[in-house]
């Protein structure tokens, strides 16, 4: 029982306490803040589990962008707490508690009785790393060995943004998402929105580029780019683009589109869908990732901006 294990047990207990507080607290806004803090601490747990790529993604998308989304919604819904009449009765509560306890117990049992030695695909992944000459095994899995999953995930992002856009009211169809933000031009938010995006863009491109050989990648970099864009929008330095703009729609489709093209090229010129020719694997993967990071940044930013609310004129 060394220091590291004690720290991990304490971290797990703190995260659990925060989770209980998030579910049990009365006001919605407090629950949202609790959830953001929970997300950031879970990123710490991911680091202790030696999964730094996932920790970066959880901190950026789960804690950061998800937190912005939920806080914005909680602020707009502040006056809409449900009435007492809607609170569930005792029977519902007890049966829900029993079901949850049963599920948690089953999963805890599964964790304690996991097979030993643990089955793993790590040796296979490391053995085939020469296929792409990238050193980060997670990037290899995401972009080469299970590239189909990543491509379909880009399509899921596209479907989500189409779903969000379809919620526009009739008079705002094709218009600008979200309200027009105004901020004091000499104020602190505008200062931050002028100072931080250059740094943020450099950090995002660095995290994306170093994802080939170290923890990082297109998702984490894209999330940082999206947050810089959202910061500029919130400070009123730029307006949300109207969703009918051609360049916007091109950027949104570029990621999955290029992925699909490369996949079909693998089918046409090579052996299978998404098969990379060994000599061209690294340039192809990096090219796809460049398109991916732009698409991810645009999609995540637009998902945060929400459905169109202002018409084009």
């Amino acid at each position, binding site marked *: 029982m060394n220091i590291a294990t004690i720290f991990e047990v304490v971290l797990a207990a703190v995260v659990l306490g925060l989770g209980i507080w998030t579910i049990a607290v009365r006001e919605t806004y407090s629950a949202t803040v609790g959830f953001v803090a929970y997300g950031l601490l879970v990123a710490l747990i991911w680091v202790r589990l030696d999964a730094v790529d996932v920790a970066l993604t959880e901190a950026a998308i789960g804690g950061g962008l998800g937190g912005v989304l939920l806080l914005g919604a909680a602020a707009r819904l502040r006056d809409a707490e449900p009435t007492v009449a809607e609170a569930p009765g005792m029977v519902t509560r007890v049966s829900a508690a029993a079901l949850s306890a049963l599920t948690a117990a089953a999963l805890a049992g599964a964790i304690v009785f996991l097979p030993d030695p643990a089955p793993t695909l*790590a040796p296979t992944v490391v053995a085939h790393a020469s296929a792409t000459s990238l050193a980060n095994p997670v990037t290899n899995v995401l972009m080469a060995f299970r590239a189909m999953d990543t491509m379909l995930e880009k399509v899921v992002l596209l479907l989500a943004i189409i779903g969000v856009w379809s919620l526009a009211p009739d008079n705002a169809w094709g218009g600008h998402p979200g309200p027009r933000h105004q901020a004091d031009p000499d104020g602190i938010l505008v200062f931050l929105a002028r100072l931080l995006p250059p740094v943020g863009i450099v950090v995002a491109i660095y995290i994306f580029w170093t994802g080939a050989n170290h923890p990082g990648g297109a998702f984490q970099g894209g999330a940082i780019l999206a947050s810089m864009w959202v910061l500029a929008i919130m400070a009123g330095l730029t307006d949300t683009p109207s969703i009918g703009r051609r360049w916007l729609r091109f950027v949104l489709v570029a990621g999955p589109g290029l992925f699909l093209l490369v996949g079909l090229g693998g089918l046409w010129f090579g052996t299978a869908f998404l098969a990379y020719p060994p000599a061209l694997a690294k340039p192809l993967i990096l090219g796809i990732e460049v398109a991916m990071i732009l698409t991810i940044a645009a999609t995540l930013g637009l998902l945060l901006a929400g459905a169109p609310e202002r018409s084009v004129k």
Partner: protein
Amino acid sequence: MSGPTAFGLCAAVAVGLGLYGLITNPHPLRKLIAFNLLGSGVFLLFGVVGRRGAAAGVGNDPVPQALVITGIVVAFSATALAISLLLRLFQKTGSTTLSNVAPPNASSDPSGG
């Protein structure tokens, strides 16, 4: 009790908590938060299984890691869509109730959309 086992138990309880919050809390935003808690617990379970699969110089099995990264992005986009639906419901009816009996009040959306 090793570190990953502690995280695994925390994740199992998080799944139970998320399920309870999803079922019992009437406010849709709280349901969303509970749903995200449930999802994060499931991802942590993947992470614990991956940690036990550490081999060949890699600290955590890369395949569950890739699955979790995909899952986090998909969960975020699903949450974003759900929040857009919720805000549109609030705009149209003036309340966030999911039951059918609440009448729309005077502040409902006049844009006809």
